[in-house]
C-alpha cells in the first residue's frame, strides 16, 4: 500500500514520532530474531502421559468442551480379555452380566463381547465415553491397565492454555509435537 507523501518541513513532533517509530521497529526486529532462534516449524498439541495419570476424574469436568476431548481408549495387545473385568464391572455387581446396574461405566460406553471361552473383548464406544476414568482406575488397580485416557485430537481444540492441564493434579499433561500426538501404552513399557 503506497500513499503519496506531501512535501513539508519536518516538524519537531513529526521527527520525534519518526524516530520513535524506528526505535519500535528495531525493538520488534530484535525481539523476533531473539525468538526466531527458538521457534519451531511444527506446532505442538496437548497430550496426557498415561503412566502419570492418577484417574482423578478431572479430565471429564475440566475440559472447555461440554463433553471432554479426553476419552478412554483400549490397548488391545495389553488387555487380558478377562471374564471378570474390573474396568467393566462394578466392584460389587449384582450379577456378572451386561445389565447397567453391574457396570462401572456411568454412561455404559464399554461394549462387552464374548469371544472363545473364557475370554471377552471390551471396546470403548467413543462418542458415548465422557473420559471420567472410572474404568481406567478399575483396570489399572486390578487388571493389566489396558484402559487409559488420551486426548482425542479429532475433538481437542488445542487451547493455548489447556484447562485440563491446569487442573491436573498429577501434572500429566504436556505439549507434544503434532506429528506424534499420542502417548500410547505398549507392552514393552508395561513390563
Amino acid at each position, binding site marked *: 500500500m503506497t500513499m503519496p507523501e506531501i512535501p513539508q518541513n519536518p516538524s519537531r513532533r513529526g521527527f520525534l514520532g519518526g524516530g520513535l517509530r524506528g526505535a519500535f521497529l528495531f525493538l*520488534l526486529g530484535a525481539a523476533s530474531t531473539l525468538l526466531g532462534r527458538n521457534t519451531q516449524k511444527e506446532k505442538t498439541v496437548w497430550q496426557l502421559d498415561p503412566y502419570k495419570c492418577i484417574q*482423578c476424574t478431572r479430565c471429564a469436568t475440566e475440559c472447555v468442551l461440554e463433553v471432554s476431548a479426553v476419552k478412554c481408549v483400549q490397548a*488391545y495387545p495389553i488387555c487380558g480379555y478377562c471374564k471378570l473385568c474390573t474396568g467393566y464391572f462394578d466392584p460389587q455387581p449384582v450379577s456378572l452380566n451386561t445389565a447397567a446396574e453391574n457396570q462401572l461405566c456411568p454412561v455404559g460406553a464399554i461394549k462387552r463381547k464374548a469371544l472363545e471361552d473364557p475370554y471377552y473383548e471390551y471396546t470403548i464406544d467413543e462418542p458415548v465415553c465422557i473420559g471420567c476414568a472410572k474404568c481406567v482406575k478399575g483396570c489399572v488397580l486390578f487388571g493389566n491397565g489396558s484402559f487409559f485416557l488420551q486426548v482425542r485430537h479429532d475433538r481437542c481444540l488445542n487451547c493455548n492454555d489447556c484447562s485440563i492441564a491446569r487442573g491436573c493434579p498429577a501434572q500429566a499433561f504436556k505439549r507434544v509435537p503434532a506429528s506424534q500426538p499420542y502417548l500410547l501404552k505398549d507392552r514393552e513399557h508395561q513390563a
Partner: protein
Amino acid sequence: MNFFPHLVTSIHSLSVQARRRLILMRAGRFLIGLLLTLFFITSWTTLGVERFPPPEFEPGYQMPTLTTPSPRANAMDYLDVAVLLATLSAASWAVLKTRSRRRVFGVMIFSLLYFGFYRKGCVCPIGSIQDVALSLFNHGYAVPLTVLIFFLAPLLFTLAFGRSFCAGVCPLGAIQDIFLIKPVKVPGLLSQALGMIPYFYLGTAVLLAATGSAFIICDYDPFVAFFRRTGSLPMLMFGAGMLIIAIFVGRPYCRFLCPYGAILRVLSRFSKWNVTLTPTDCIQCRICEAACPFGAIAEPSAKPAGPRGTWPQLIGSIVLVPVLIALGGWLGGRMAVPLSKIHPAVRLAELVAAEDAAKTVDTSDATRAFRATGRPVAELNTQALEIRRNFVGGSWLLGAFIGFALGLKLAALAWGSAQTTFDPDSANCLACGRCYTYCPKEILRVKQGQKVACEVCAGKT
C-alpha cells in the same frame, strides 16, 4: 386400588424363589468383594504390570486396533496466517484508503466468523503475548512460528496504519462492536483511569506466563465461550456481562482490559498513517465527537498550543515518575511470595510441606500423585525456591512497570499538548470508521466524488 394386578401376583408367586436368588446374589457379591480386596492388597505395589497374560487366540480372531485421529494439519495453521495478513491489509485499506465504514464492517464480520466462530478464538494475537513471554524466558518452550507471526504482524501493521487490527481483525473486538446499540459517553477522567487497567493486566500476564505459572489472558478470555458455544458458567456469565455492558459502553474489553490493546495503544501513537477527518476545513460542528462511541475524538481546547498543566504540575509529574517506579517496585517485591503461589509447583511444594508438618499424607490428589512418583521432596523444594526467586525479580519489575505506566500517564496528562482540531486521538482510536459517516465535510467529499486529499491520507506525518 391395584392398577397392576398381574405384576403383583407374579412377584407373590415367585417370592420364595426370589428370596433364595437374593441370598445367592449377596453371597456372590461378598465373594467378588473379597476377591477384589485381595487383588487390591497384592497389586498395590505393582501398578501397570501384566497380571493376566494376554490370551493366545485362535487364528480367526482379528484384534481391533486403537485409532489415533490426527490433529489439525500444519498447513491449516499457515492458512490462518494468510487470512490474518489478508484481513489486516483489507482492514487497513478500508479504513485509510477507501474511508468506508461499511467496508471496515464487512472485514470485521468476516474476521468474527473466521477467527471467532470457525477457529473458535484460538490462536489470537492477544493470547500470543504469553507464548512469546514464556519462550523468551523459558528456553524449554519454543514458540511455534505461526504464533510468532500472529504476535508480530498486528504490531507492524499498527506502526504503519494505526489500530486497523482492532477495527477489522480481532474477533473479540468484533463481537462487542456488533452489540454496541446505545452508546453512552464514559466521563473523560474515568475513562483515563480505567484505561490504566490494560497495563496492569499486561504486566501481570507477562510475569505469570514468563514464570510458567499460568496463561491468564486465555483463562479469562470473556468471549471464547461464545465462539465455542460451550464453556464454564462463570466464564459465560463474565462474557454475557461484558456484552451487556458493550451495548452501552463501546467495546469495554478493548478499551479497559485488553492487554494487547495496551501495546497497540502505545505503538499507534507513532504510527505512520492514522484515521483523520478533514482537519483543514473542520467546521466545528462536533458531530464526530458525538458519533465516536469510544471517546477518541476530544474537544479541542481553547488554548492554541503548549502543555495543559500549570508549571508546578509539570515539574511535579516529572519528579513523580522515578518515585512511582521505586514505590511500585518495592510493593511488587512484597507481592512475590503470594504471587508465586499461582505456580503449580510452588503450590504443590507448600501442600507437601504442610502434610509433612502435620505428619499426614494424601490430603489431596496432587500430593498423592506426587508421592506416587517417588520424587524426592528436596528436589521439589529446590524447584519451588527457584521459581520463587524468579518471582522476586519478576514482581519487582512488574511493580516498577506499573509505577512507570502510572507516572507516564500523569506526565502525559500534564504535558500533553492541546488539540486544535476535532480529530481522532491516535492512541484511543479503534479505526472503526464511524466518524467518516457522520462528518458533513466527509459526506460532501464522497458525494462530489473527490479523491481523498493528500494531507488526509498522509495523516499527521
